């Protein structure tokens, strides 16, 4: 069924609109994170439509709820691509959901814009990764912590929820730390189950580990486990001063309605923070708040933006821009137009990689403030190029769709 002209036929079938799919969980455990991304996509769509659409067509988003159910992700992806014949899909958060839909997109020649930081080691022709690769988030963070300015930490506790991203992230981090001369015994790796709520034992282990003030934590703890973790951390007498936590999965949106008292001073590494000073960003933040208030979404104008929201939003624009550039919605053409495409995102100018489907962008490290925002304490000098295959763990591989057929072995 997947010959060539699926998208073309839609283009002729409906004169005024072009359909895109929105595949974010609106219920289930991931809803808390993903709903905001759906809103961001919706906002980008509204903006573009207000400006006249793409190639003269209004964008019509088809929103479905894959309900944090990985099988349903695949089912919905098929539905969007085959039944609804959408031109592109914006969605997914967890790695497993992406892995679940990946074959569907590849078999049906679809295009998925994936807005969340991820573990890398993937190079699909059907996915546009607008989130960070490990080298755009993990490595700079570790580097910063080891630096004089960052505190010169010598011991690292790699703590994560037990799933792919933390596992891979920690593998890369560990390789990096070892390569920087951190002795093995100064790196501890530990995982907790999903939704783990009881961090007493782990914190007391950390306390011992961090007794000499030289230790920090690299946290890939996910979702609802964070609050109990940070709370217990504070209650057992640890603090950002004695042992900072560098988080890779805590962003403004999660901190929005939390009491952040026990989080203040801890760190997070991303590519974007709401506190970014750029005028584009200020407008974006305001627009987003206004959008949420206007649509009566929960939170209203108290809503905040964060890294994944920024990239979900940017993704839509990238697609629109590429379609304009290609003059067509056809997946292969859009894909080709995306290479090296530049876009003025809320995070400043970002640029698609010329050879693969990742985005080059700045890396920032922030310190959590009492209001749930981040104080940007470090920023990369310019854009950091994506490395889907980390040179630390897969030195022989690279991803290139222009000169090679995706992943290839480096000489």
């Amino acid at each position, binding site marked *: 069924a997947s010959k060539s002209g699926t998208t073309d036929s839609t283009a002729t079938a409906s004169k005024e609109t072009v359909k895109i799919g929105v595949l974010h969980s609106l219920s289930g455990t991931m809803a*808390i994170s993903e709903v905001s991304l759906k809103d961001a996509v919706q906002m980008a769509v509204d903006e573009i439509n207000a400006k006249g659409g793409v190639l003269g067509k209004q964008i019509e988003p088809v929103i479905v709820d894959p309900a944090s159910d990985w099988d349903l992700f695949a089912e919905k992806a098929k539905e969007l691509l085959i039944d609804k014949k959408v031109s592109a899909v914006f969605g997914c958060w967890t790695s497993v959901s992406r892995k679940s839909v990946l074959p569907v997109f590849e078999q049906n020649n679809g295009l998925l814009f994936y807005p969340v930081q991820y573990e890398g080691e993937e190079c699909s022709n059907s996915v546009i990764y607008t989130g960070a690769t490990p080298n755009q988030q993990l490595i700079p963070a570790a580097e910063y912590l080891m630096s004089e300015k960052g505190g010169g930490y010598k011991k690292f506790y790699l703590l994560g929820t037990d799933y792919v991203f933390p596992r891979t992230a920690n593998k890369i981090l560990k390789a990096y730390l070892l390569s920087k001369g951190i002795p093995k015994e100064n790196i501890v790796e530990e995982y907790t189950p999903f939704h783990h709520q009881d961090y007493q034992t782990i914190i007391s282990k950390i306390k011992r580990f961090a007794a000499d*003030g030289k230790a920090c934590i690299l946290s890939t703890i996910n979702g609802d486990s964070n609050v109990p973790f940070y709370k217990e951390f504070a209650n057992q007498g640890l603090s950002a001063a004695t042992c900072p936590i560098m988080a890779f999965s805590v962003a403004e949106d999660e901190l929005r309605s939390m009491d952040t008292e026990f989080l203040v001073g801890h760190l997070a590494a991303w590519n974007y923070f709401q506190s970014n000073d750029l005028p584009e960003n200020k407008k974006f933040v305001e627009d987003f708040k206004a959008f949420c208030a206007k649509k009566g979404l929960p939170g209203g104008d108290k809503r905040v933006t964060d890294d994944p929201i920024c990239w979900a939003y940017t993704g839509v624009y990238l697609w629109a821009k590429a379609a304009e550039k290609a003059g067509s919605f056809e997946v292969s053409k859009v894909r080709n137009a995306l290479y090296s495409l530049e876009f003025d995102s809320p995070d400043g100018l970002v640029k698609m990689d010329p050879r693969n489907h990742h985005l080059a962008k700045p890396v920032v490290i922030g310190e959590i403030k009492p209001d749930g925002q981040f104080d940007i304490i470090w920023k990369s000098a310019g854009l950091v190029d994506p490395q889907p295959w980390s040179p630390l763990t897969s030195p022989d591989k690279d991803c290139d769709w222009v000169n090679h057929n995706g992943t290839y072995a480096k000489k």
Partner: protein
Amino acid sequence: MRHFLRPGWILLFLLCSLRGRSQDSASIYVNQILQPSADSVRTNAIHRLVALRDPSTFPLLMAINDKKLYLLDNKAVTTDSKPSGDGNYRLYTVYPTYQLLQNSSGQPLLLPPGKLTAVDIPRADRLALVGIAPLLNLFSNDVQKRMLAYSQVGNLQDQSTLQLVAAAVNRETDENVQRIGREALYAARLYAAKDETNAKVYIDSIALNWSDNAATLLTSYSKEKAFSPAAGSYALAKASRLEKKYDNLQRIQNLFSGLSLGSILILIALGLSIVYGLAGIINMAHGEFMMIGAYTTYCMQLVFGHQAGDWFYVAALPLSFISAGIMGLILERLVIRHLYSKPLESLLATWGISLILVQTARLIFGDLTAVKTPQLLAGGWQVAPHLTLPYNRIFIIVLTLVMVLLTYLMLFKTKLGLQIRAVTQNRQMSACLGVETRQVAALTFFIGSGLAGLAGCAITLIGNVVPDMGQTYIVDSFLVVVTGGVGKLAGTIVSGLGIGFFTKISEAFFQAVYGKVFILLFIMLFMQYKPKGLFPDKGRIAEE
């Protein structure tokens, strides 16, 4: 110990004289920083001040480092790191003295940061403070920072640094920080010591002082810095003794964790036990009642706002019980009452209800939210250097104890309890004996749901508040109820504690995941021997 105090006094004297000499130049630089004629002047002044290492300028430098330097009526001031209520901060002068600012009535002056003019020091200049930052922090008014500073001051062989540290230790008011500070001093002396008796004295002091880091410090001393093997092995012996003590404390900590986890489980299971064990309803929505309680607490926090301090939590405790209870009551009236004696249908209906409740919560709140820990329950009780028992957990344990006691009294010492137990075992006959079964059943459900709500309120102290938080606990709490024996209060308590302890003990050996798997399999095997829970009914009543 006294032995060291004496040099301390001398040092302080020295320091004071130092200050006298540098006083003039310091104040010049200070002025240059606050009112620079050019950026380069300021940069220079900062560098000079850093080089001076005059403690009287430390509050100023620290304020710069923390980006908390403000001008108030042309006076340089700084603020506390945390607001003292309602977003207002206390103010301190930074130079030449470090003093709390007071208003006319002698109360601390409280102002929001917005009322102050921030002195903007460029990042490059701030970086000049990096080297001296730990020293500055020795005089910080943030305990945490002081604590950290001692481990970061670095080489204490440098005399001027040593003097500063010693002075700081003497000034120190916080016992824990002082402990760390003393350790830094002892360590410096130990490293400098060149004869065995002297070294042993310092080693002993370090061991006696027993800060968090003592064992590591001694070990590394024996490995790297010891000047003689004898001193090294002596240090090592001390270290290993400390490690043992430490291990023992860790064990106590683990037991406490077990107790705490156990009491949480009991608190959640208590309501379930009443609703399931007594009313025969497999309440899949139990976790959602918990969620209601948690959100009630959250709402209380919003309603009370920041001024009210801990009162929101005081109000939330009864309210979470009542709100969840009322919700339970409504559901009982609307749905559950049709389902007594139909446990299967109750399963289906309560599952449906739980879906609805979760989605409703998601629509209303929609976020990951968390309740702030009441001030009274923040932090922990430091029992020994390595043993901190968080207040929030202690509170939950006490709350559980009280609730268990109340539940016991209610069930076994009151008429209502008698009727509840009767109704759940035989509705029709109870009715024939004059028991108003509807009311009793509704009340049972009210109490059961209410207890869940209370548990939710308690859980906010340690976890977050999310729409599907209930599902995290539902299996665990069913496990507790079932291993204890359905409808057995004592069973619920024993199994809750048992599972709590066991989880924590196994977590000490395995990773958290395997700990959990282990506990689940263990329970399965345990049920082999006690197929009807810990406290099975005996005799004829045990049959079907």
